[in-house]
């Protein structure tokens, strides 16, 4: 089997488990929603701060939700020794990485659509028509990067105790540049400054490419050690 078909196999497996258990959609999605509400309570809706800081709040919410999605992605491998089976399956480590990351990307994209709707409604944000494509492209690239970083750190701690508390400590500093670039790109897109938005967007693209490359190389050896 090729790398792509192996990756699709793993992604389908993870998505099938998610469709049956509905953990991400029944628990992570409401979590993201309540975080959006909490930001509004914390920053006071009357002061007009929310539309200004909305891009940053959106990406912070996505990142926090992604932590739960990543933990879930590797929790299913920890049950009933599934990780051993995955290791013995003979599938390429790079394909397993791509498959697991793709499943997280799909879940996060659905989450982002719902959260973005929440941001438009609750935070009164308006995205100019010509900026929608740029915003969508940056969102996809940033989601790929978050999923890649999460998948790498997820497998890094998969076989050890206290992984639930370690994943945020490892992932959050690593996603800092991404959070910065994606938030700035959204901010400039909302202000209709497309050229600056795309400059930040290109940085998101570079980070996503680096993260995927690191994941493809490192996932196999890390899976052996987990």
């Amino acid at each position, binding site marked *: 089997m090729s790398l792509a078909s192996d990756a699709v196999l793993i992604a389908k497996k993870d998505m099938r488990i998610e469709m049956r258990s509905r953990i991400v959609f029944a628990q992570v999605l409401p979590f993201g929603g309540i975080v959006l509400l909490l930001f509004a309570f914390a920053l006071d809706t009357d002061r007009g701060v929310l539309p200004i800081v909305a891009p940053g709040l959106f990406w912070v919410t996505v990142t926090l939700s992604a932590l739960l999605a990543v933990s879930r992605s590797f929790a299913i491998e920890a049950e009933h020794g599934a990780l051993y089976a995955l290791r013995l399956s003979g599938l390429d480590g790079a394909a397993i990485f791509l498959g697991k990351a793709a499943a997280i990307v799909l879940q996060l994209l659905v989450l982002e659509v719902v959260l973005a709707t929440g941001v438009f409604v609750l935070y009164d944000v308006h995205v100019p028509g010509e900026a929608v494509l740029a915003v969508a492209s940056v969102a996809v690239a940033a989601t790929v990067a978050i999923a890649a970083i999460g998948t*790498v750190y997820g497998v*890094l*701690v998969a*076989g*050890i*105790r*206290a992984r639930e508390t*370690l994943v945020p*400590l*490892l992932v*959050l*500093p*690593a996603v*800092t*540049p*991404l959070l*910065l*670039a994606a938030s*700035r790109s959204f901010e400039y897109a909302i202000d209709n400054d497309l050229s*600056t938005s795309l400059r930040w967007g290109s*940085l998101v693209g570079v*980070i996503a490419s*680096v993260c995927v490359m*690191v994941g493809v190389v*490192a996932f196999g*050896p*890390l899976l052996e*050690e*987990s």
Partner: protein
Amino acid sequence: MIASWLWRRWFGILTLKALVALAVFGLVVAPPDSEQGDAARLLYVHVPAAWIAYLAFFVTALASALYLWPRTRNDSWDHLAGASAEFGVLCTGLTLFLGSVWGKPIWGTWWQWEARLTTTAVLLFLYLGYLALRRLGGVSSQRRNAIAALIAFIDVPIVHFSVSWWTSLHQQGSVFNDKMDVTINDGRMAFTLWLGAGAFTLLFAWCCLGRMRLLGIESKNSELELEAAIAQRTGVPS
């Protein structure tokens, strides 16, 4: 054994002398800065600590790469990576603390969202995560730790680049302008800064060697305990 003890003692005394010399030069010999006054004396520790922090993280990455390379694989590289990262985190914390103390009278604020400061803060958390991972141990944890160290090191330029770009696109604060640049126009001040770099390098080497030795003893003890447990279970002496 005795030669090693004497050598460690000699190296320790040399490091201590360098630190005392730094204190004397930093507090007495070097004159106060014409613009910053006595606050500039903090830089004789702050700047070397920052240099050594970056050096320590580089050593961690290098030692991790050498551990991963099959031809050079040795537990000593893993111990060096751990020891170096611990010292790096300590220096990063010291850099941030002294930077804040210096920034309050000079910039008028404890914290400035400036590229180097922000990068250093992110680095601190990045390597705190690495140390937390190391502390968990486990079977074949060295290889996992080595890969984690390399991933963290790859992230360093990305963090620095993105933060630099971010701050360059923002209007500079009124307290953070060209006049704040540290220009060394006194030989005694320049010498003290270089003395600080030398003293901190010696301290880094001494702490790393001592910590490596301890990690080696810990590792050997774990092996002995495991062998004793197996011997107790099987009844066959190891």
